[in-house]
């Protein structure tokens, strides 16, 4: 079962439990028999795809299954008086049960639609008509449904028994009777309970209004960890971690950061220390997929005898993506690919301007968040020169003795 489904059941159970607990506190201990249960006749809704007789047989079988299983669980099963409603609602059920001196009431329901049978068994607490336990299923409306009806009856009886035990104070679980208030400066941001690393879907809890959200009741044990996700369109989601405590709790969510839609960077690297590279990224998918255009201008100069600076102006373009870790992570990494238009200038006689073309089949980068929108970036790229006749870079991998180009720099999210 998915975690969100667990949560919903837990919330419902906790709500019912609290309701039952308060009801028990107000109940007159001398009034109903705490084990007496009024078992109603099955409520059947059929489209006549099977005969009425067959439908009635299925209903009676289900009722008898319930009678037997509830009896096995210690309930004293009573039949309603003839004037009792045939298809009552919870309040009517509760009233009828109280009138019979029963603390519980059970109602089987069957629906038949195009030979499909859907059924449920609901057991109500007679004090306020709160639902105490239920079991439901569906199958083909035939003789093959009988084992399933029996199994569902047993399930409902077991749940009712467990509920009765919990309501009488026998439950070892201690639920927290308070709620959490989340404070956030992001008005309108959606708040949900994280599905965590299990892959469960996040459970929606509400939206920030007036700088806060009082979270719905969460059935949690003290000390259990809560991961609350705050998200808003155009911004990066934030995860707020907290531990369920012993009292009222107020949790402050950090301001949501804008998603990365554009970014600027400066960089340099071995062989390009005498100059600077400027980079621009435009994100097709905010925070993840981008186009880039990098410009570099620098001088190659080894300070050796006979050497003069050789000037390079480069324009690199391409596309890339972050592949590792979500946007809010302190470290992220990805790859990109593209090509470079490379111009070189030398103060020499004869040819003095050169043009090379290079491909970058892969460039790997990693970023470490420094503060705010600023990150430090390390890149390693393999650039392959096409060896144009107009250039000075031979056909092959660029970079000299180590055919890789390294870069370090800083990046700013715009």
């Amino acid at each position, binding site marked *: 079962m998915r975690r969100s489904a667990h949560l919903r059941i837990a919330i419902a159970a906790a709500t019912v439990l609290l309701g039952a607990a308060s009801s028990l506190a107000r109940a007159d201990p001398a009034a109903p028999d705490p084990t007496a249960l009024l078992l109603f006749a099955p409520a059947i809704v059929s489209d006549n795809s099977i005969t009425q007789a067959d439908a009635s047989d299925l209903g009676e079988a289900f009722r008898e299954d319930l009678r037997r299983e509830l009896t096995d669980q210690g309930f004293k099963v009573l039949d309603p008086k003839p004037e009792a409603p045939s298809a009552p609602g919870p309040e009517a059920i509760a009233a009828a049960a109280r009138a019979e001196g029963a603390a519980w009431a059970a109602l089987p329901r069957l629906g038949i639609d195009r030979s499909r049978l859907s059924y449920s068994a609901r057991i109500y607490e007679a004090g306020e008509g709160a639902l105490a336990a239920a079991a439901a299923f569906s199958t083909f409306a035939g003789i093959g449904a009988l084992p399933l009806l029996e199994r569902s009856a047993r399930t409902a009886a077991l749940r009712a028994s467990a509920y009765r035990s919990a309501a009488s104070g026998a439950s070892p679980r201690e639920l927290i009777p308070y709620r959490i208030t989340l404070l956030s400066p992001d008005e309108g941001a959606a708040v949900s309970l994280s599905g965590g690393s299990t892959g469960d879907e996040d459970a929606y809890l509400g939206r920030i209004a007036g700088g806060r959200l009082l979270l719905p009741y969460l059935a949690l044990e003290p000390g259990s960890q809560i991961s609350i996700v705050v998200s808003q369109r155009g911004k990066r989601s934030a995860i707020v971690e907290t531990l369920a405590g012993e009292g009222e709790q107020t949790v402050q969510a950090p301001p949501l950061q804008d998603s990365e839609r554009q970014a600027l960077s400066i960089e340099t690297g071995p*062989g390009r220390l005498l100059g600077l590279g400027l980079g621009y990224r435009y994100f097709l998918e905010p925070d993840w997929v981008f186009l880039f255009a990098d410009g570099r201008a620098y001088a190659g100069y080894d300070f050796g*005898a006979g050497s003069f600076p050789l000037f390079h102006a480069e324009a690199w373009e391409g596309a890339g993506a972050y592949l590792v870790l979500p946007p809010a992570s302190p470290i992220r990494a990805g790859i990109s690919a593209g090509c470079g238009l490379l111009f070189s200038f030398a103060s020499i006689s004869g*040819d003095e301007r050169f043009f*090379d073309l290079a491909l970058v089949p892969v460039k790997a980068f990693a970023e470490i968040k420094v503060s705010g929108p600023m990150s430090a970036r390390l890149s390693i790229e393999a650039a392959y020169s096409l060896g144009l006749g107009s250039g000075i870079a031979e056909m092959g991998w660029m970079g000299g003795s180590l055919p890789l180009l390294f870069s370090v720099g800083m990046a700013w999210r715009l």
Partner: protein
Amino acid sequence: MRKVAALVLSLASLMLGACSYLLQDPYAQFMEKAAGAADLGSSLGSGISYLGMTEASSGSTTYLFLEILASSGSKIVKALSASSLTLSGLSGQGSPSTLCAAVDAKGDYVVAGLAYAPSSLAADSLDAALPGFLASDAAAGLNYIFTSAAAASAQLSYSTYDASWASAAPFQKAFRSDLSSWRLARVLLLDDGSLALLAFQGSAAKGSLLAAVYPSLAAFAASTESALDASSASRSAVVNIDTNQAGIGSTEGLPAWPTSEGLVVLLSDANGGFRLARYGYDGGAEKDEYSVDSRPDAAFYFEPSGRYWFLYEKSANKLYKLRTWWTD
């Protein structure tokens, strides 16, 4: 103490290596030394093979002679201005035995058996066959032709001609006696008029280069000692090399060039790259080196002056004039 010294040296080497890597141009490191560049693709045409380069000066004009093998099988010499790297009208064609590019005693360029006046570049035939290296003594009016024997020999043979190439006188000198036979690889005059001879001795695997520098052609001729003898040469260097690594035996000749500043030899690195090592004439100790490992397709030539060197990229037909790494 030795361990400490070794550690210090290792660290220093590591730091120098790191520094060198940090400053290494990602395109072509040698271009930082460039003084000129020329694209020779259209002028040389296709289907040619590179053979070698030689520089010769007459008066104030210096030509770089580029020797190529045409697809027809004949050798062609193209003369380029050594300063601008532009092609001149001077070119020659001949058989390998007559190919020569140098300046004779009259100041004419002698290319492939023809003499060209520096002013007009008009060709004039020579009576003398020139099966070897030409070095001239303008003051004495003598041309020296050193025999370029294909096979190693115990004798160094040369002939002298007068300025008009009219009369010839053959001479022979025994190579230094403590070593066996040698093969003369280069003969050239350095800037100060001194004569540099480069010979090679060895097998296909191991060999020695011997560079000997004499004060002048006349001093060489007047010497009674055996050729290339350290006692007769004013300076000399013996460099033992792995000939396989140096690529000796290729059609481009011996990849070693005597200069006024030392003998430069192209060597292979252990990792398959190439480096140019410079050896001093005071015994042959290596002075410095320069990595050219990113240019396996290149051919090299060093000016006798030691100020410039040339890098010719064969596949791209590109020629670069470069400052030497020891010249400020």
